[in-house]
Protein backbone atom coordinates (compact mmCIF):
# COMPACT_ATOMS: atom_id res chain seq x y z
CA UNK A 1 0.00 0.00 0.00
CA UNK A 2 1.11 3.51 -0.79
CA UNK A 3 2.91 5.08 2.15
CA UNK A 4 4.77 8.28 3.00
CA UNK A 5 4.37 11.98 2.43
CA UNK A 6 6.67 13.23 -0.33
CA UNK A 7 7.63 16.64 -1.54
CA UNK A 8 9.55 17.87 -4.55
CA UNK A 9 11.96 20.52 -3.29
CA UNK A 10 12.80 23.48 -5.48
CA UNK A 11 16.26 24.99 -5.81
CA UNK A 12 17.68 27.58 -8.11
CA UNK A 13 21.42 28.06 -8.65
CA UNK A 14 22.12 25.69 -5.80
CA UNK A 15 20.00 27.48 -3.19
CA UNK A 16 16.60 26.34 -1.92
CA UNK A 17 13.59 28.41 -2.81
CA UNK A 18 11.54 29.31 0.25
CA UNK A 19 8.66 27.15 -0.97
CA UNK A 20 10.81 24.07 -0.29
CA UNK A 21 10.73 24.77 3.45
CA UNK A 22 7.00 25.52 3.31
CA UNK A 23 6.49 22.16 1.61
CA UNK A 24 8.70 20.29 4.10
CA UNK A 25 6.99 21.83 7.14
CA UNK A 26 3.53 21.08 5.78
CA UNK A 27 4.46 17.53 4.82
CA UNK A 28 5.80 16.98 8.36
CA UNK A 29 2.47 18.02 9.83
CA UNK A 30 0.54 15.64 7.57
CA UNK A 31 3.00 12.78 8.08
CA UNK A 32 2.78 13.09 11.87
CA UNK A 33 -0.96 12.67 11.65
CA UNK A 34 -0.52 9.60 9.49
CA UNK A 35 2.44 8.24 11.44
CA UNK A 36 4.49 8.15 8.24
CA UNK A 37 7.81 9.42 6.92
CA UNK A 38 8.53 12.61 5.01
CA UNK A 39 10.72 12.20 1.95
CA UNK A 40 11.92 14.91 -0.40
CA UNK A 41 13.12 14.72 -3.98
CA UNK A 42 15.91 17.14 -4.87
CA UNK A 43 17.09 17.47 -8.46
CA UNK A 44 19.88 19.46 -10.05
CA UNK A 45 23.57 19.53 -10.67
CA UNK A 46 26.10 20.03 -7.89
CA UNK A 47 23.37 20.19 -5.28
CA UNK A 48 24.19 17.21 -3.10
CA UNK A 49 25.75 19.53 -0.51
CA UNK A 50 22.48 21.28 0.31
CA UNK A 51 20.36 18.11 0.47
CA UNK A 52 20.69 17.47 4.20
CA UNK A 53 19.45 20.97 5.10
CA UNK A 54 15.89 19.80 4.59
CA UNK A 55 16.23 17.68 7.72
CA UNK A 56 15.87 20.86 9.73
CA UNK A 57 12.30 21.25 8.45
CA UNK A 58 11.16 17.75 9.23
CA UNK A 59 12.35 15.70 6.26
CA UNK A 60 13.45 12.15 7.12
CA UNK A 61 14.99 11.26 3.80
CA UNK A 62 16.13 13.25 0.79
CA UNK A 63 16.35 11.46 -2.56
CA UNK A 64 18.93 13.32 -4.62
CA UNK A 65 19.63 13.01 -8.31
CA UNK A 66 22.72 15.03 -9.12
CA UNK A 67 23.02 15.06 -12.88
CA UNK A 68 24.16 17.71 -15.37
CA UNK A 69 21.07 16.95 -17.46
CA UNK A 70 18.89 18.23 -14.59
CA UNK A 71 20.32 21.74 -14.74
CA UNK A 72 18.77 24.06 -15.74
CA UNK A 73 15.24 22.85 -15.10
CA UNK A 74 13.43 21.34 -18.03
CA UNK A 75 10.00 19.79 -17.82
CA UNK A 76 11.04 16.58 -19.53
CA UNK A 77 14.11 15.87 -17.43
CA UNK A 78 12.58 16.72 -14.07
CA UNK A 79 9.26 15.01 -14.69
CA UNK A 80 11.04 11.85 -15.84
CA UNK A 81 13.31 11.78 -12.79
CA UNK A 82 10.55 12.48 -10.24
CA UNK A 83 8.19 9.96 -11.85
CA UNK A 84 10.90 7.29 -11.70
CA UNK A 85 11.70 7.64 -7.99
CA UNK A 86 8.05 8.12 -7.04
CA UNK A 87 6.99 4.98 -8.90
CA UNK A 88 9.73 3.00 -7.18
CA UNK A 89 8.63 4.11 -3.71
CA UNK A 90 4.86 4.50 -4.04
CA UNK A 91 4.14 7.38 -1.64
CA UNK A 92 0.57 8.14 -0.63
CA UNK A 93 0.89 11.92 -0.86
CA UNK A 94 3.04 14.08 -3.16
CA UNK A 95 3.29 17.84 -2.62
CA UNK A 96 4.85 20.44 -4.90
CA UNK A 97 4.92 24.23 -4.86
CA UNK A 98 2.52 26.20 -7.02
CA UNK A 99 5.52 28.28 -8.12
CA UNK A 100 6.10 28.72 -11.85
CA UNK A 101 8.35 25.65 -11.94
CA UNK A 102 6.18 23.64 -9.58
CA UNK A 103 3.05 24.32 -11.60
CA UNK A 104 4.72 23.06 -14.75
CA UNK A 105 6.30 20.01 -13.16
CA UNK A 106 3.30 18.97 -11.09
CA UNK A 107 0.91 19.10 -14.04
CA UNK A 108 3.22 16.97 -16.15
CA UNK A 109 3.48 14.49 -13.27
CA UNK A 110 -0.30 14.18 -13.10
CA UNK A 111 -0.02 12.75 -16.61
CA UNK A 112 3.02 10.58 -15.95
CA UNK A 113 1.68 9.15 -12.69
CA UNK A 114 -1.92 8.96 -13.95
CA UNK A 115 -3.28 10.55 -10.80
CA UNK A 116 -5.20 13.59 -9.60
CA UNK A 117 -4.04 16.88 -8.12
CA UNK A 118 -5.46 19.85 -6.25
CA UNK A 119 -3.70 22.96 -7.61
CA UNK A 120 -2.61 26.07 -5.70
CA UNK A 121 -3.97 24.97 -2.32
CA UNK A 122 -4.21 27.33 0.64
CA UNK A 123 -4.75 24.56 3.21
CA UNK A 124 -4.30 20.80 3.43
CA UNK A 125 -5.29 18.32 6.11
CA UNK A 126 -5.75 14.63 6.75
CA UNK A 127 -9.26 13.29 7.20
CA UNK A 128 -9.89 9.57 7.58
CA UNK A 129 -6.31 8.82 6.50
CA UNK A 130 -6.80 10.74 3.25
CA UNK A 131 -5.59 14.07 2.01
CA UNK A 132 -8.18 16.83 1.88
CA UNK A 133 -6.98 19.92 0.04
CA UNK A 134 -8.61 23.29 0.27
CA UNK A 135 -8.20 25.55 -2.74
CA UNK A 136 -9.60 28.70 -4.31
CA UNK A 137 -11.65 28.22 -7.48
CA UNK A 138 -13.32 30.73 -9.78
CA UNK A 139 -10.59 33.22 -8.90
CA UNK A 140 -11.29 32.86 -5.20
CA UNK A 141 -15.04 33.49 -5.55
CA UNK A 142 -15.52 30.05 -4.05
CA UNK A 143 -13.34 27.30 -2.58
CA UNK A 144 -13.27 23.58 -3.18
CA UNK A 145 -12.43 20.72 -0.85
CA UNK A 146 -10.62 18.28 -3.07
CA UNK A 147 -9.93 14.59 -2.54
CA UNK A 148 -7.89 12.36 -4.82
CA UNK A 149 -8.98 8.76 -5.39
CA UNK A 150 -5.68 7.54 -6.89
CA UNK A 151 -2.15 7.63 -5.50
CA UNK A 152 -0.06 9.56 -5.03
CA UNK A 153 -2.64 12.08 -3.91
CA UNK A 154 -1.09 15.23 -5.34
CA UNK A 155 -1.42 18.84 -4.26
CA UNK A 156 0.48 21.97 -5.16
CA UNK A 157 0.74 24.58 -2.42
CA UNK A 158 0.40 28.32 -2.96
CA UNK A 159 3.74 29.98 -2.12
CA UNK A 160 3.88 32.23 0.96
CA UNK A 161 0.75 30.76 2.58
CA UNK A 162 2.04 27.79 4.62
CA UNK A 163 4.21 28.47 7.63
CA UNK A 164 7.77 27.28 7.95
CA UNK A 165 8.32 25.21 11.09
CA UNK A 166 11.65 23.81 12.21
CA UNK A 167 11.50 20.16 13.34
CA UNK A 168 14.84 18.41 13.38
CA UNK A 169 14.82 15.09 11.53
CA UNK A 170 17.61 13.03 10.02
CA UNK A 171 17.48 14.41 6.50
CA UNK A 172 19.30 11.28 5.38
CA UNK A 173 20.63 11.71 1.86
CA UNK A 174 19.89 8.89 -0.59
CA UNK A 175 21.34 9.22 -4.07
CA UNK A 176 19.46 7.93 -7.06
CA UNK A 177 20.02 7.76 -10.77
CA UNK A 178 17.59 9.97 -12.67
CA UNK A 179 17.68 7.43 -15.50
CA UNK A 180 17.70 10.10 -18.18
CA UNK A 181 18.42 9.46 -21.78
CA UNK A 182 19.04 12.43 -24.03
CA UNK A 183 16.33 11.41 -26.49
CA UNK A 184 13.66 11.98 -23.82
CA UNK A 185 14.56 15.64 -23.47
CA UNK A 186 12.86 17.66 -26.15
CA UNK A 187 13.05 21.11 -24.61
CA UNK A 188 16.11 23.20 -23.92
CA UNK A 189 16.70 26.45 -22.05
CA UNK A 190 18.70 28.63 -24.46
CA UNK A 191 19.04 31.72 -22.32
CA UNK A 192 18.12 33.13 -18.96
CA UNK A 193 17.58 36.83 -18.58
CA UNK A 194 17.63 37.76 -14.92
CA UNK A 195 15.70 40.65 -13.56
CA UNK A 196 18.42 42.90 -12.23
CA UNK A 197 16.25 44.91 -9.84
CA UNK A 198 17.26 42.60 -7.01
CA UNK A 199 13.67 42.72 -5.71
CA UNK A 200 11.92 39.71 -4.31
CA UNK A 201 9.35 38.36 -6.77
CA UNK A 202 5.74 39.38 -6.08
CA UNK A 203 4.75 35.78 -5.38
CA UNK A 204 7.37 35.52 -2.63
CA UNK A 205 7.23 39.03 -1.23
CA UNK A 206 6.35 39.71 2.39
CA UNK A 207 5.05 43.15 1.62
CA UNK A 208 3.66 44.48 -1.66
CA UNK A 209 2.83 48.08 -2.52
CA UNK A 210 0.63 48.21 -5.61
CA UNK A 211 -0.44 51.17 -7.70
CA UNK A 212 -3.38 51.34 -10.09
CA UNK A 213 -4.95 53.80 -12.48
CA UNK A 214 -5.20 56.27 -9.62
CA UNK A 215 -1.44 56.80 -9.99
CA UNK A 216 -2.29 58.84 -13.09
CA UNK A 217 0.96 58.11 -14.94
CA UNK A 218 4.20 56.13 -14.88
CA UNK A 219 6.18 59.11 -13.54
CA UNK A 220 4.24 59.01 -10.28
CA UNK A 221 5.30 55.50 -9.32
CA UNK A 222 8.34 56.98 -7.62
CA UNK A 223 6.15 57.65 -4.57
CA UNK A 224 5.17 53.97 -4.51
CA UNK A 225 8.77 52.90 -5.02
CA UNK A 226 9.96 55.09 -2.16
CA UNK A 227 7.43 53.52 0.18
CA UNK A 228 8.40 50.07 -1.07
CA UNK A 229 12.08 50.81 -0.46
CA UNK A 230 11.41 51.85 3.11
CA UNK A 231 9.33 48.73 3.79
CA UNK A 232 11.55 46.33 1.82
CA UNK A 233 8.51 45.66 -0.33
CA UNK A 234 7.99 44.70 -3.96
CA UNK A 235 5.96 46.95 -6.27
CA UNK A 236 2.86 45.57 -7.96
CA UNK A 237 0.24 47.04 -10.27
CA UNK A 238 -3.31 46.64 -11.47
CA UNK A 239 -4.02 45.60 -15.02
CA UNK A 240 -5.16 49.12 -15.83
CA UNK A 241 -1.65 50.35 -15.02
CA UNK A 242 -0.03 47.52 -17.00
CA UNK A 243 -2.29 47.91 -20.02
CA UNK A 244 -1.58 51.64 -20.03
CA UNK A 245 2.09 50.74 -20.36
CA UNK A 246 3.02 52.32 -17.03
CA UNK A 247 4.33 49.09 -15.52
CA UNK A 248 5.64 45.81 -16.99
CA UNK A 249 3.39 42.78 -17.32
CA UNK A 250 5.43 41.01 -14.65
CA UNK A 251 4.08 43.51 -12.08
CA UNK A 252 0.42 42.70 -12.70
CA UNK A 253 -1.51 41.27 -9.80
CA UNK A 254 -4.83 39.56 -10.43
CA UNK A 255 -6.70 36.90 -12.29
CA UNK A 256 -4.63 37.35 -15.45
CA UNK A 257 -1.53 38.37 -13.56
CA UNK A 258 0.17 37.03 -10.46
CA UNK A 259 -1.59 35.48 -7.50
CA UNK A 260 0.08 36.84 -4.39
CA UNK A 261 -0.20 36.18 -0.66
CA UNK A 262 2.05 38.64 1.16
CA UNK A 263 1.74 39.48 4.84
CA UNK A 264 0.80 42.99 3.85
CA UNK A 265 -0.70 44.26 0.60
CA UNK A 266 -1.04 48.01 0.17
CA UNK A 267 -3.31 49.01 -2.72
CA UNK A 268 -2.95 52.62 -3.83
CA UNK A 269 -5.41 54.03 -6.34
CA UNK A 270 -6.81 50.60 -7.14
CA UNK A 271 -10.59 50.26 -7.25
CA UNK A 272 -10.63 46.56 -6.39
CA UNK A 273 -12.24 45.05 -9.49
CA UNK A 274 -13.12 41.41 -9.00
CA UNK A 275 -10.23 40.37 -11.28
CA UNK A 276 -7.78 42.29 -9.13
CA UNK A 277 -9.18 40.90 -5.87
CA UNK A 278 -8.72 37.42 -7.35
CA UNK A 279 -4.98 37.91 -7.23
CA UNK A 280 -4.54 39.32 -3.74
CA UNK A 281 -7.40 38.35 -1.44
CA UNK A 282 -5.36 35.63 0.24
CA UNK A 283 -2.98 38.34 1.57
CA UNK A 284 -2.85 38.33 5.36
CA UNK A 285 -3.43 42.08 5.76
CA UNK A 286 -4.81 44.41 3.12
CA UNK A 287 -4.56 48.18 3.18
CA UNK A 288 -6.44 50.35 0.71
CA UNK A 289 -5.66 53.98 0.00
CA UNK A 290 -8.31 55.38 -2.30
CA UNK A 291 -10.20 58.67 -2.53
CA UNK A 292 -13.49 56.99 -3.35
CA UNK A 293 -15.05 55.59 -0.19
CA UNK A 294 -17.27 53.33 -2.28
CA UNK A 295 -14.41 51.58 -4.09
CA UNK A 296 -14.89 47.80 -3.77
CA UNK A 297 -11.31 47.40 -2.50
CA UNK A 298 -12.60 48.63 0.89
CA UNK A 299 -14.78 45.50 1.21
CA UNK A 300 -11.58 43.40 1.41
CA UNK A 301 -9.36 45.88 3.25
CA UNK A 302 -8.40 45.40 6.89
CA UNK A 303 -7.39 49.06 7.01
CA UNK A 304 -8.63 51.75 4.70
CA UNK A 305 -7.68 55.36 4.18
CA UNK A 306 -10.16 57.41 2.15
CA UNK A 307 -8.11 60.26 0.75
CA UNK A 308 -5.90 61.46 -2.07
CA UNK A 309 -3.06 58.99 -2.36
CA UNK A 310 -0.70 61.76 -3.48
CA UNK A 311 -1.10 63.29 -0.05
CA UNK A 312 -1.29 60.12 2.06
CA UNK A 313 1.40 57.91 0.53
CA UNK A 314 4.35 60.33 0.92
CA UNK A 315 3.26 61.04 4.51
CA UNK A 316 2.94 57.34 5.19
CA UNK A 317 6.45 56.78 3.80
CA UNK A 318 7.78 59.29 6.33
CA UNK A 319 5.84 57.56 9.12
CA UNK A 320 7.31 54.19 8.16
CA UNK A 321 10.81 55.63 7.96
CA UNK A 322 10.47 56.76 11.57
CA UNK A 323 8.88 53.52 12.75
CA UNK A 324 11.59 51.43 11.14
CA UNK A 325 14.51 53.70 12.00
Amino acid at each position, binding site marked *: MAKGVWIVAEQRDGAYRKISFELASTARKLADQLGEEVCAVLLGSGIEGIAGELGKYGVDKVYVADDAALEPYTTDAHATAVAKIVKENDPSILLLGASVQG*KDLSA*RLVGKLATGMATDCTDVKIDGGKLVAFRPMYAGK*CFGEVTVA*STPQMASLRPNVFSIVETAKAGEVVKFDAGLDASQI*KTKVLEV*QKDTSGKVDLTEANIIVSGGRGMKGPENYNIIEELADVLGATVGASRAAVDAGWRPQSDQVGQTGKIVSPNLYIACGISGAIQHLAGMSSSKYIVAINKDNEAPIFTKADYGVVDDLFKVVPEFTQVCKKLLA
Partner: protein
Amino acid sequence: MRPGGKENFNISILWNAGAGPADAAVRPLCIGKEDDVNIVACVKQVPDTEAMIKVKPDGSGIDEAGIKWVMNPYDEFGVEEALKLKEKQGGDVTIVSLGPARAMETIRTALAMGADKGIHINDPALEGADAYVTASALAAAIKAIPHDIIFCGQRAIDDDSGQVGSVLAEMLGLPSVTIVTKADIEGGAIKVIKPIEGAQLLIESSLPCVVTAQKGLNEPRYASLPGIMKAKKKPVDVKDAAALGVSAEVKAKVAKFVPPPARPPGKIVCGDDPAAKAAELGRLLREEAKVI
Protein backbone atom coordinates in the same frame (compact mmCIF):
# COMPACT_ATOMS: atom_id res chain seq x y z
CA MET B 1 14.73 38.19 -43.18
CA ARG B 2 16.21 35.61 -40.87
CA PRO B 3 16.65 32.36 -42.74
CA GLY B 4 16.08 29.24 -40.73
CA GLY B 5 18.95 26.96 -39.92
CA LYS B 6 22.11 27.26 -37.93
CA GLU B 7 22.43 30.96 -37.24
CA ASN B 8 22.55 31.99 -33.64
CA PHE B 9 19.25 32.93 -32.19
CA ASN B 10 19.06 36.60 -31.54
CA ILE B 11 17.15 36.74 -28.32
CA SER B 12 16.61 40.48 -28.57
CA ILE B 13 14.24 39.91 -31.44
CA LEU B 14 11.87 38.11 -29.11
CA TRP B 15 12.63 40.13 -26.05
CA ASN B 16 12.66 43.63 -27.38
CA ALA B 17 10.09 43.49 -30.12
CA GLY B 18 6.42 44.09 -29.46
CA ALA B 19 3.99 41.27 -29.99
CA GLY B 20 2.11 43.34 -32.54
CA PRO B 21 1.35 42.27 -36.10
CA ALA B 22 3.94 44.64 -37.61
CA ASP B 23 6.71 42.87 -35.77
CA ALA B 24 5.34 39.50 -36.67
CA ALA B 25 5.25 40.35 -40.35
CA VAL B 26 9.03 40.63 -40.65
CA ARG B 27 9.67 37.21 -39.17
CA PRO B 28 9.26 34.49 -41.74
CA LEU B 29 8.15 31.21 -40.30
CA CYS B 30 9.30 27.87 -41.40
CA ILE B 31 8.05 24.79 -39.75
CA GLY B 32 10.53 22.62 -41.56
CA LYS B 33 8.29 21.00 -44.11
CA GLU B 34 6.48 21.97 -47.25
CA ASP B 35 2.96 21.16 -46.09
CA ASP B 36 0.59 23.45 -44.34
CA VAL B 37 0.62 23.43 -40.57
CA ASN B 38 -2.03 21.49 -38.73
CA ILE B 39 -2.84 23.67 -35.77
CA VAL B 40 -5.10 22.72 -32.87
CA ALA B 41 -6.43 25.11 -30.23
CA CYS B 42 -8.27 23.80 -27.17
CA VAL B 43 -10.93 26.04 -25.69
CA LYS B 44 -13.19 25.93 -22.66
CA GLN B 45 -16.35 27.83 -21.97
CA VAL B 46 -16.24 29.49 -18.53
CA PRO B 47 -18.23 32.07 -16.56
CA ASP B 48 -17.38 35.65 -17.46
CA THR B 49 -14.73 37.11 -15.12
CA GLU B 50 -17.34 39.54 -13.77
CA ALA B 51 -19.78 36.74 -12.86
CA MET B 52 -20.99 36.38 -9.29
CA ILE B 53 -20.35 32.82 -8.20
CA LYS B 54 -22.85 31.31 -5.79
CA VAL B 55 -22.32 27.91 -4.22
CA LYS B 56 -25.36 25.61 -4.23
CA PRO B 57 -26.81 25.14 -0.74
CA ASP B 58 -25.73 21.47 -0.66
CA GLY B 59 -22.17 22.34 -1.73
CA SER B 60 -22.34 20.07 -4.76
CA GLY B 61 -21.36 22.77 -7.21
CA ILE B 62 -22.07 26.31 -8.24
CA ASP B 63 -25.40 27.79 -9.15
CA GLU B 64 -25.25 28.43 -12.89
CA ALA B 65 -28.38 30.58 -13.05
CA GLY B 66 -27.77 33.96 -14.62
CA ILE B 67 -24.14 33.29 -15.52
CA LYS B 68 -22.84 34.75 -18.76
CA TRP B 69 -20.57 32.23 -20.48
CA VAL B 70 -17.49 33.23 -22.43
CA MET B 71 -14.36 31.71 -23.90
CA ASN B 72 -11.69 31.25 -21.22
CA PRO B 73 -9.51 34.37 -21.60
CA TYR B 74 -6.27 32.35 -21.71
CA ASP B 75 -7.72 30.18 -24.48
CA GLU B 76 -8.39 33.36 -26.47
CA PHE B 77 -4.64 33.96 -26.48
CA GLY B 78 -4.15 30.39 -27.70
CA VAL B 79 -6.70 30.78 -30.50
CA GLU B 80 -5.18 34.09 -31.55
CA GLU B 81 -1.69 32.56 -31.69
CA ALA B 82 -3.07 29.68 -33.75
CA LEU B 83 -4.66 32.10 -36.22
CA LYS B 84 -1.52 34.20 -36.49
CA LEU B 85 0.49 31.08 -37.23
CA LYS B 86 -1.99 30.00 -39.88
CA GLU B 87 -1.89 33.42 -41.53
CA LYS B 88 1.88 33.43 -41.76
CA GLN B 89 2.48 29.81 -42.52
CA GLY B 90 -0.64 28.48 -44.19
CA GLY B 91 -2.55 25.60 -42.73
CA ASP B 92 -5.69 25.07 -40.79
CA VAL B 93 -6.90 25.54 -37.26
CA THR B 94 -9.08 22.97 -35.51
CA ILE B 95 -10.85 23.99 -32.30
CA VAL B 96 -11.41 21.25 -29.73
CA SER B 97 -13.66 21.78 -26.74
CA LEU B 98 -15.06 19.59 -24.00
CA GLY B 99 -18.27 20.89 -22.51
CA PRO B 100 -22.06 20.72 -22.50
CA ALA B 101 -24.29 21.87 -25.36
CA ARG B 102 -23.68 25.55 -24.58
CA ALA B 103 -19.93 25.09 -25.25
CA MET B 104 -20.86 25.07 -28.96
CA GLU B 105 -21.20 28.88 -28.70
CA THR B 106 -17.56 29.13 -27.69
CA ILE B 107 -16.47 26.87 -30.54
CA ARG B 108 -18.47 29.10 -32.93
CA THR B 109 -16.77 32.17 -31.47
CA ALA B 110 -13.37 30.67 -32.28
CA LEU B 111 -14.60 29.76 -35.79
CA ALA B 112 -15.85 33.32 -36.20
CA MET B 113 -12.39 34.60 -35.24
CA GLY B 114 -11.07 32.56 -38.17
CA ALA B 115 -10.57 28.93 -37.15
CA ASP B 116 -11.59 26.35 -39.75
CA LYS B 117 -13.37 23.52 -38.00
CA GLY B 118 -14.32 22.21 -34.62
CA ILE B 119 -14.63 19.12 -32.48
CA HIS B 120 -17.14 19.32 -29.66
CA ILE B 121 -16.82 16.63 -27.00
CA ASN B 122 -20.21 16.60 -25.35
CA ASP B 123 -21.31 13.87 -22.96
CA PRO B 124 -23.24 14.25 -19.68
CA ALA B 125 -20.98 11.53 -18.24
CA LEU B 126 -18.03 13.92 -18.63
CA GLU B 127 -19.57 16.67 -16.56
CA GLY B 128 -17.35 17.25 -13.54
CA ALA B 129 -14.37 15.88 -15.46
CA ASP B 130 -11.06 16.55 -13.71
CA ALA B 131 -7.85 17.47 -15.51
CA TYR B 132 -7.00 13.82 -16.16
CA VAL B 133 -10.35 12.93 -17.73
CA THR B 134 -10.49 16.19 -19.68
CA ALA B 135 -6.99 15.64 -21.06
CA SER B 136 -7.83 12.01 -21.95
CA ALA B 137 -10.84 13.14 -23.97
CA LEU B 138 -8.93 15.93 -25.71
CA ALA B 139 -6.02 13.57 -26.41
CA ALA B 140 -8.30 10.98 -27.95
CA ALA B 141 -9.88 13.59 -30.23
CA ILE B 142 -6.53 15.13 -31.20
CA LYS B 143 -4.83 11.77 -31.85
CA ALA B 144 -7.35 11.15 -34.60
CA ILE B 145 -6.37 14.29 -36.56
CA PRO B 146 -3.02 15.57 -37.84
CA HIS B 147 -1.44 17.95 -35.32
CA ASP B 148 1.82 19.89 -35.60
CA ILE B 149 1.19 22.26 -32.73
CA ILE B 150 -1.45 22.50 -30.02
CA PHE B 151 -2.35 25.65 -28.13
CA CYS B 152 -4.12 25.66 -24.76
CA GLY B 153 -4.73 28.40 -22.22
CA GLN B 154 -2.33 28.16 -19.27
CA ARG B 155 -5.33 27.60 -17.05
CA ALA B 156 -9.12 27.90 -17.15
CA ILE B 157 -10.52 30.58 -14.90
CA ASP B 158 -13.33 28.41 -13.54
CA ASP B 159 -11.57 25.54 -11.79
CA ASP B 160 -8.20 27.38 -12.02
CA SER B 161 -6.42 24.08 -12.12
CA GLY B 162 -3.79 24.72 -14.79
CA GLN B 163 -3.08 21.09 -15.58
CA VAL B 164 -4.83 20.14 -18.81
CA GLY B 165 -2.22 21.35 -21.32
CA SER B 166 0.61 19.46 -19.63
CA VAL B 167 -1.37 16.27 -19.06
CA LEU B 168 -2.55 16.40 -22.67
CA ALA B 169 1.07 16.70 -23.84
CA GLU B 170 2.05 13.72 -21.72
CA MET B 171 -0.78 11.63 -23.14
CA LEU B 172 0.19 12.56 -26.69
CA GLY B 173 3.85 11.89 -25.93
CA LEU B 174 4.76 15.47 -26.83
CA PRO B 175 6.87 18.11 -25.13
CA SER B 176 5.10 21.01 -23.45
CA VAL B 177 6.09 24.63 -22.96
CA THR B 178 3.82 26.30 -20.45
CA ILE B 179 2.76 29.80 -19.43
CA VAL B 180 4.48 31.47 -22.36
CA THR B 181 4.35 35.15 -23.31
CA LYS B 182 5.99 34.94 -26.73
CA ALA B 183 6.33 32.22 -29.32
CA ASP B 184 8.22 31.98 -32.58
CA ILE B 185 8.38 28.98 -34.86
CA GLU B 186 11.34 28.43 -37.10
CA GLY B 187 13.16 25.54 -38.66
CA GLY B 188 11.04 22.76 -37.19
CA ALA B 189 11.33 24.05 -33.64
CA ILE B 190 9.55 26.55 -31.46
CA LYS B 191 11.18 29.17 -29.28
CA VAL B 192 9.19 30.67 -26.46
CA ILE B 193 9.64 33.14 -23.66
CA LYS B 194 8.51 32.06 -20.25
CA PRO B 195 8.58 34.43 -17.30
CA ILE B 196 9.59 32.81 -14.01
CA GLU B 197 10.11 34.40 -10.61
CA GLY B 198 12.71 37.13 -11.13
CA ALA B 199 13.79 36.07 -14.63
CA GLN B 200 12.69 35.23 -18.15
CA LEU B 201 13.66 32.06 -19.94
CA LEU B 202 14.13 31.52 -23.64
CA ILE B 203 13.16 27.90 -24.24
CA GLU B 204 13.34 25.86 -27.41
CA SER B 205 11.20 22.81 -28.02
CA SER B 206 10.96 20.38 -30.88
CA LEU B 207 7.66 20.13 -32.76
CA PRO B 208 5.00 18.90 -32.51
CA CYS B 209 4.43 20.30 -29.06
CA VAL B 210 1.83 21.73 -26.69
CA VAL B 211 2.05 25.45 -25.87
CA THR B 212 0.06 26.98 -23.02
CA ALA B 213 -0.71 30.67 -23.38
CA GLN B 214 -0.23 33.41 -20.82
CA LYS B 215 -1.43 37.01 -21.00
CA GLY B 216 1.02 39.05 -23.07
CA LEU B 217 1.30 36.48 -25.87
CA ASN B 218 -0.86 38.59 -28.19
CA GLU B 219 -4.01 40.70 -28.41
CA PRO B 220 -6.89 38.40 -29.34
CA ARG B 221 -8.95 39.70 -32.26
CA TYR B 222 -12.69 40.17 -32.17
CA ALA B 223 -14.89 38.15 -34.48
CA SER B 224 -16.02 40.23 -37.47
CA LEU B 225 -19.60 40.21 -38.71
CA PRO B 226 -18.70 38.30 -41.90
CA GLY B 227 -16.65 35.99 -39.68
CA ILE B 228 -19.71 35.26 -37.57
CA MET B 229 -21.77 34.54 -40.69
CA LYS B 230 -19.12 32.20 -42.09
CA ALA B 231 -18.69 30.42 -38.76
CA LYS B 232 -22.26 29.13 -38.93
CA LYS B 233 -21.36 27.00 -41.95
CA LYS B 234 -18.05 25.65 -40.69
CA PRO B 235 -18.05 21.94 -39.76
CA VAL B 236 -18.14 20.88 -36.11
CA ASP B 237 -17.91 17.20 -35.22
CA VAL B 238 -19.72 16.19 -32.05
CA LYS B 239 -18.31 13.23 -30.12
CA ASP B 240 -19.13 11.47 -26.86
CA ALA B 241 -16.98 9.52 -24.43
CA ALA B 242 -17.79 6.18 -26.04
CA ALA B 243 -16.84 7.41 -29.51
CA LEU B 244 -13.49 8.54 -28.10
CA GLY B 245 -13.04 5.47 -25.94
CA VAL B 246 -12.32 7.39 -22.74
CA SER B 247 -13.25 6.60 -19.17
CA ALA B 248 -15.18 9.26 -17.27
CA GLU B 249 -13.84 8.17 -13.90
CA VAL B 250 -12.22 11.17 -12.21
CA LYS B 251 -9.10 10.99 -10.07
CA ALA B 252 -9.44 14.34 -8.31
CA LYS B 253 -12.87 15.30 -7.08
CA VAL B 254 -14.21 18.48 -5.58
CA ALA B 255 -15.98 16.81 -2.67
CA LYS B 256 -17.51 20.06 -1.54
CA PHE B 257 -17.79 23.64 -2.78
CA VAL B 258 -17.80 26.32 -0.10
CA PRO B 259 -18.01 30.13 -0.12
CA PRO B 260 -14.68 31.91 0.43
CA PRO B 261 -13.61 32.32 4.06
CA ALA B 262 -14.98 35.62 5.39
CA ARG B 263 -12.52 38.39 6.15
CA PRO B 264 -13.12 40.24 9.40
CA PRO B 265 -14.66 43.68 8.77
CA GLY B 266 -12.03 46.34 8.13
CA LYS B 267 -11.32 49.65 9.83
CA ILE B 268 -11.42 52.97 8.08
CA VAL B 269 -8.88 55.44 9.40
CA CYS B 270 -10.86 58.63 10.03
CA GLY B 271 -9.85 62.28 10.13
CA ASP B 272 -9.32 65.24 7.84
CA ASP B 273 -5.58 65.54 7.87
CA PRO B 274 -3.67 63.18 5.54
CA ALA B 275 -0.60 63.30 7.78
CA ALA B 276 -2.62 62.29 10.85
CA LYS B 277 -4.24 59.46 8.90
CA ALA B 278 -0.87 58.26 7.67
CA ALA B 279 0.41 58.25 11.26
CA GLU B 280 -2.62 56.31 12.49
CA LEU B 281 -2.26 53.77 9.68
CA GLY B 282 1.38 53.29 10.65
CA ARG B 283 0.39 52.77 14.26
CA LEU B 284 -2.26 50.18 13.40
CA LEU B 285 0.08 48.22 11.16
CA ARG B 286 2.80 48.33 13.78
CA GLU B 287 0.85 47.72 16.98
CA GLU B 288 -2.30 45.88 15.93
CA ALA B 289 -1.43 43.89 12.81
CA LYS B 290 2.29 43.74 13.66
CA VAL B 291 3.26 43.56 10.01
CA ILE B 292 5.74 46.43 9.79
